[in-house]
């Protein structure tokens, strides 16, 4: 990666139009990035996901080609924020509310919003987050006032699609006030291998706030690095789902802080990999207060020569008595060449807690296949039914029926592809 080249392609470098705090933040992030450097094969956190092939490319920022978004829009959403190659496309978006549900850049003049933004942007020490801040383009800003319940779905669509080593540097902010609630669907699309989407999402849930947050990666190409920070206050609930239909190379980090009593989070993830695709899910759930609940279920279906990584850490701080935590990762390998590294981790400093974790790696149940065939179901169909059943559990967790139906259809298609891959 050539940072100078990236600078040249970025409008913020070389013009002084941005507020000084943001210019300062960019400069600081660059200095940090240059001093720490990018992770390599000897960085423990990146052991199974060497970002070499991303770092070897000379990325530049791409053009806003709004027409690329058309095919991926969601007519059922009440609000839709569309970004192409990191640029906000107002003509493709609808239902946005100035200052509340809009793009990040539109807030740069707003003093209150700036305060919140500044708070979110000073914590980055990790290399790709520093890169994200230094070259930040735009992103979604979703702020829901206290006691407000948004009935309709908010859809945030990010398309990175270009045939010339294009990267998007996106930052999303979702902030829910006390007892506010919302449903957000984030879609990430890339259809060429020459793209890198680097996104940081900051989520803040005030007392009693509830968020259903679904991530849906579509298209089966490109690279993506994603980092989600969830900060939860008292009695708030974060309900996170992610569906990864397979990209060339993906690294996801989710970091949840249950910082006050009664907060609850559930993290569900499904990843479907074929060919030579690679995906790494790193999750950290940090129980920092008593009586918090966390549930985590990740499932993977891997075919071809794909590789997957699951690393799930649950931390229970000394003060976090009566923690209730369950964590599981199950993997189905459809081919001999597929590979998964799975590692659930517990770090417990409190003594009155309930923590369970488990992980499995296996092939399709041959007895089950034979049983179905003896009832007349052809082998290929039986395999499809069993892999679908494996994935179904995670689809059923999505509360929004329309969203569930649409994702389900694509998950089933993708499963059929992976099966035929081998």
């Amino acid at each position, binding site marked *: 990666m050539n940072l100078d080249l990236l600078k040249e392609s970025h409008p913020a470098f070389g013009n002084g139009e941005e507020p000084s705090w943001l210019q300062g933040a960019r400069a600081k992030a660059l200095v940090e990035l240059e001093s720490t450097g990018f992770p390599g094969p000897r960085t423990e956190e990146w052991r199974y996901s060497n970002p070499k092939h991303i770092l070897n490319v000379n990325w530049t920022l791409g053009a806003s080609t709004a027409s690329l978004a058309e095919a991926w829009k969601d007519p059922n959403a009440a609000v839709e924020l569309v970004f192409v190659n990191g640029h906000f496309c107002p003509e493709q978006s609808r239902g946005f509310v100035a200052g509340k549900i809009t793009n990040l850049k539109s807030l740069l003049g707003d003093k209150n919003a700036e305060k919140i933004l500044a708070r979110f942007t000073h914590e980055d020490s990790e290399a790709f987050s520093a890169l994200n801040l230094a070259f930040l383009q735009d992103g979604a800003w979703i702020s829901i006032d206290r006691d407000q319940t948004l009935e309709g779905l908010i859809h945030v669509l990010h398309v990175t699609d270009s045939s010339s080593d294009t990267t998007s540097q996106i930052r999303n902010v979702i902030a829910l006030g006390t007892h506010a609630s919302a449903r957000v669907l984030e879609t990430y699309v890339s259809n060429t291998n020459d793209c890198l989407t680097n996104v940081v999402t900051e989520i803040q849930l005030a007392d009693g706030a509830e968020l259903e947050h679904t991530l849906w990666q579509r298209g089966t190409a490109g690279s993506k690095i994603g980092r989600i920070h969830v900060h939860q206050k008292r009695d708030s609930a974060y309900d996170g789902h992610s569906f990864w239909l397979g990209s060339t190379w993906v690294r996801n980090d989710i970091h949840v802080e249950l910082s006050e009593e009664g907060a609850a989070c559930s993290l569900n993830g499904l990843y479907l990999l074929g060919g030579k695709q690679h995906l790494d899910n790193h999750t950290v759930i940090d129980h920092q207060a008593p009586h918090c609940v966390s549930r985590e279920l990740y499932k993977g279906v891997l075919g071809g020569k794909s590789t997957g990584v699951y690393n799930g850490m649950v931390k229970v701080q000394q003060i976090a008595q009566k923690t209730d935590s369950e964590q599981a990762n199950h993997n189905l390998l459809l081919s001999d060449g597929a590979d998964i590294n799975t590692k659930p981790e517990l770090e417990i400093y409190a003594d009155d807690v309930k923590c369970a974790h488990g992980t499995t790696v296996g092939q399709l149940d041959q007895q*089950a296949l034979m*049983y179905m065939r003896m*009832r*007349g*179901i*052809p082998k290929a*169909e039986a395999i499809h039914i069993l892999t679908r059943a494996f994935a179904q559990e995670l689809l059923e967790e999505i509360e929004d029926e329309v969203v569930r139906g649409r994702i389900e259809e694509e998950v089933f298609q993708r499963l059929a592809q992976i099966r035929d891959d081998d």
Partner: protein
Amino acid sequence: MLSDRSSFMLSIQNLHANIEGNPILQGLNLEVNPGEVHAIMGPNGAGKSTLAKILAGEDSYEVTDGVVQLNGEDILELDPEERAAKGLFLGFQYPVELPGVSNSYFLRTAVNAQRKARGEDEIDAYDFLKALKSNMALLEMDPAFKSRFVNVGFSGGEKKRNEILQLLTLKPKMALLDETDSGLDIDALRVVAKGVNSLRSPERSFVVVTHYQRLLDYIVPDYVHVLVDGQIVRSGDKSLAHQLEESGYAGMEASV
């Protein structure tokens, strides 16, 4: 040298089979006419379950010799799903769990897959549910089992009932029941037998594999065969079952 056997529902001639090189079936012969119920009894390890599984198409056994015909057609080269579509059914001794697959979805998929293979139209969804409902009522099954995952969390008796539910719904021409009575209390046995007997007809045949004579009081066979060391060593009518109950299998050896 083979005579015309197309009038038989099932015809097994000189069947030999191995598992991992060990001979299990050693020249087994059996002929079943349409409408007949045959019971196969025998000591543990005689090859009863192996026979049932080989007939249904289990591929972990190696058939080394012999012919098996269903309605005059050789089936040993057919896939299990093809045999099922031609009307063969095996009720499992140990039914398999299918997590994430609901009972009614599984059954409807099986019915339609068989119909498709036979060149028939898919079953009407309403007709299917109606038939499923009445079959469940006959077997005294809680309607909730319709939407539960196949056999997941079922008791032993519930699993056996579920096998008979599949039998009733798929309506095969040739049903093999492998130790359907094992692990059943007398009430469950009665219900299971009621289900099987409701299907008896001149066009349908049954081969009932069992270790105990008890089942045959409820599903009364036309013929009883004794399987020892991979061969049928004695055949008779239902009185043979009673005789076995009293004297056991001692003295019945295969003539290898």
